[in-house]
């Protein structure tokens, strides 16, 4: 069975590594982007497609929302999940996110959310 691929976009190297390693251990193929700029540049080259883009939302940045919008517009086959600790910021993401907010760094919740997003996509026939 083909591994599902996920792009993790997270600035904090410790959080990113722990999350990515956890997801790999769960059988996902994980690519890591160190910033929204890097994620956007990598996606633009269209060398690899991703089933899910998991984007962390820092408390003082709109970049994550812009990236999420851009991915949804240009890569409709990619499920977008937003993660962050600041609930107030995440309220603005309601129209961008395919599911409820994911409290960081609850890795199990992230995995559950990814599975739900992939299942929903399968039901939609994407």
């Amino acid at each position, binding site marked *: 069975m083909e591994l599902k691929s996920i792009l993790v976009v997270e600035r904090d*190297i*410790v959080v*990113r*590594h722990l999350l*990515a*390693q956890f997801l*790999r251990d769960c059988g996902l193929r994980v*690519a*890591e*982007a*160190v*910033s929204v700029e*890097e994620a956007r*540049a*990598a996606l633009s*080259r269209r*060398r*690899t497609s991703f089933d899910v883009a998991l984007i962390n939302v820092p408390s003082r940045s709109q970049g994550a929302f812009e990236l999420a919008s851009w991915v949804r517009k240009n890569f409709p086959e990619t499920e977008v999940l937003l993660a962050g600790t600041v609930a107030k910021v995440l309220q603005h993401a309601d129209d961008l996110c395919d599911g409820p907010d994911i409290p960081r760094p609850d890795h199990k919740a992230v995995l559950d959310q990814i599975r739900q997003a992939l299942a929903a996509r399968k039901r939609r026939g994407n």
Partner: protein
Amino acid sequence: MVPLPEVDGAPVRILLVEDEFFIRMDVADALRQVGFQVVEAGSADEAATFLQSGESVDLVFTDINVPGVLNGLGLAAKIRSKFPMMPVLIGSGDIDRESEASRLGKFVTKPYDLRRLVRLVTDIVGSLPK
């Protein structure tokens, strides 16, 4: 089946520093395929942050030209000073940097030959004290 590289019963952890997304992804994938655990850093500054966090690392592989305050050579010099026994690989497409880099670690020429690179890392890790 290739035995998983381990040190003290834990997977060997490599800190990979590369600012080119696809190069980093390809190198990390090649190393993971033979059982290494790879921590990806997009800059030497980020790698230094990881090392300072207290997380264990068995080998560092860094590109020279990376963005930030530190470049790969600056990171290697820091590692030499704080972790003198830690193996460091230093990569660059600029062969003129080889002598400078070789004072701090093992120089690797870009573009990387992934099979040779994996073999080199495996050999270095194999010589680490158990």
